[in-house]
């Protein structure tokens, strides 16, 4: 668990709003190299990072583990009088969580910002009945315009800083768990493996631009040309007020294996058997339509790739305080390792 926590702490500390994944590459490469897992490491023009671990056997099939490296965030659309920044969202974000929240602005240097909140004396009579739009919110930098202009321009990315906070049990709050947490779980899974004893080569792809259209997963899977794939993403854990159908996935009960037309049923059943045999906790959910993950992009690569989707239950997704039970992340890592070992 401590190893996993260390990886999560590292992975969530890098910027990388969708489209700006390259901002994470230097630190990420340095850190991953220090773990000494992969025989080959690289990045792609579409914002993906990858590493390949070779078992040393000739013509060994390649198993791809995918998580996405990009996070939700914002881009600056206007640098305004008084040191304010207008923004647009990158990925889905609810405006109601923004006022008075803290952000990092990744300009020439990283500067602090705070979303403005409307002072009470300017509230309308029906203030709370009004719909809020992200693009109507704006950021206060506290800097004079002239100085701000030297640091930030239209197109500068903005993200939530990740401040990890341990809660009761193994619960952890932070930003960017979607999907840096899953990248961490994959790396933790690979650390369980003795590569020489495997029958397969294993690739880890940390795909770019999932939040804005899965392009990193498509193109990196094409490049790596895997024989099978495991996609790891986060999924919504049940919270009060959610519909009954959502009760099937709860925090603390293990990774959520997804049955869907966008995943491979035989591979999925094989993986469920592995979890049963190894006594690894898991949950089941189904996605009759889109999974909202990279699974569809990966499984339709080249001639088609049998793909398994497992998700880590997450609460408060796409906020500055995403919430995970780290037991689930560790169980998911153990599950991924067990599946790879069984191939």
């Amino acid at each position, binding site marked *: 668990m401590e190893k996993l926590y260390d990886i999560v702490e590292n992975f969530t500390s890098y910027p990388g709003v969708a489209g700006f994944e390259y901002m994470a590459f230097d630190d990420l490469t340095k850190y991953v190299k220090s773990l000494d897992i992969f025989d080959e490491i690289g990045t792609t023009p579409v914002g993906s990072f990858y590493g390949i671990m070779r078992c040393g056997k000739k013509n060994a099939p390649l198993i791809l583990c995918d998580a996405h490296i990009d996070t939700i965030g914002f881009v600056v659309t206007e640098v305004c009088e008084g040191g304010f920044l207008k923004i647009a969202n990158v990925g889905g974000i609810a405006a109601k969580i923004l006022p008075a929240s803290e952000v990092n602005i990744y300009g020439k240097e990283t500067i602090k910002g705070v979303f403005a909140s409307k002072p009470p004396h300017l509230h309308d009579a029906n203030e709370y009945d009004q719909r809020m739009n992200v693009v109507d919110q704006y950021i206060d930098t506290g800097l004079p315009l002239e100085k701000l202009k030297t640091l930030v321009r239209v197109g500068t990315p903005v993200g939530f800083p990740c401040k990890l906070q341990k809660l*009761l049990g193994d619960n952890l709050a932070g930003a960017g768990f979607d999907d840096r947490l899953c990248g961490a779980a994959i790396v933790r899974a690979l650390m369980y493996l003795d590569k020489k004893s495997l029958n397969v080569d294993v690739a880890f792809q940390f795909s770019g631009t999932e939040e804005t259209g899965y392009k990193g997963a498509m193109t990196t899977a094409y490049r790596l040309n895997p024989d099978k794939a495991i996609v790891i993403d986060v999924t919504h854990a049940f919270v009060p007020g959610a519909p009954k159908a959502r009760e099937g996935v709860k925090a603390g009960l293990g990774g959520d294996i997804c049955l869907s037309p966008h995943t491979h049923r035989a591979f999925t059943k094989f993986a469920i058997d592995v979890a049963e045999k190894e006594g690894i906790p898991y949950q089941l959910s189904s996605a009759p339509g889109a999974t909202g993950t990279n699974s569809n992009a990966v499984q339709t690569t080249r001639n088609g790739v049998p793909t398994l989707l497992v998700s880590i239950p997450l609460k408060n997704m796409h906020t500055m305080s995403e919430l995970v039970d780290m037991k689930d992340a560790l169980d998911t890592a153990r599950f991924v390792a067990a599946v790879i070992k069984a191939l």
Partner: protein
Amino acid sequence: MLKYLKKYCDILGPSGMEDEIRNAIIEDIKDSGCEYETDPMGNLTVFKKGKKRRDKKVLFSAHMDEVGFMVKYIDDDGYVHFNSIGGVDRRVVSGRRIVFCESNTYGVVASKAVHMQTAEERGKCEPINEMHIDIGARSRAEANEHIMIGDCATFVPNYTEFGEGLIRSKALDDRFGCAVLVNMINSDLEYDTYFTFNTCEEVGCNGAKEVAHRLRPDIVFVLEATTAGDTLGMPKSKRACAIGEGAVLSIVDRSTIYDKELLETAVETANEKGIKWQYKNVVAGGNEAGEYQRTASGASVLAISAPARYIHSESNVLSINDMQSVADLASALNERSF
């Protein structure tokens, strides 16, 4: 003043839970040669002898409490249902980190995820009593090992320098006023002066009512943070005040019409000493001055405020220069005989 400010802002002290902030203040003033007393309401009142006496009893007032949250109910699944202590805009609560006083239990405020909202609900922020706090407990019993009904929380301490010459933190309202008063108490005073650090301002100025009654001051200066509306595209007429423009002098707000003579004295003093100041130009907000004005035989009151953006959130933004202007003006006024 700044040496006290971070320490005070990082202390958890919502209305009714002022013990820790009061103890910190006592620690900082106890060697100053003042006399101090904690009264039944928890207010800390201080008398400091000056070089001279003056006929009128002059009191400087700040409040120790901050806005926060209180547990109303813990459900079977360990989720904490709650409401705010003091006025908190529901839109600065969702998704934020909070920490409970005493048990130091951390939590995250959650509300319905966007994909679970109906089309009608989408884009709107639900009231605070429809949100919940997730502390990571899986059952009421597990939660009750750490917190119970009535327990209080605040935003997580986050004091930081911000922008150019600004401070961002929870609770700058009114820990900055506390820091200014502590600084005054620790300096040599011209005249005998009374000071008070009050409780429960955010829930109706309960502390000030009692202090006004007991001390019967003739003149009261209330040191406060006041809402600055100087955000993007806001016309000057709607700003109330602006950060960086100096100490704020109010003519009238929703609780008080301020003493005309004191106001003129303050303007004159500020101009004389070259202290930056501004008028608050909308009638909004209110503070403990109203209580001093209406209690017992009444008092002459004036508010000297620091402009604060995003007050009552985790991100109060104040200018260091403005806070210094308030401190300078308060000290300069206290050199007057009245």
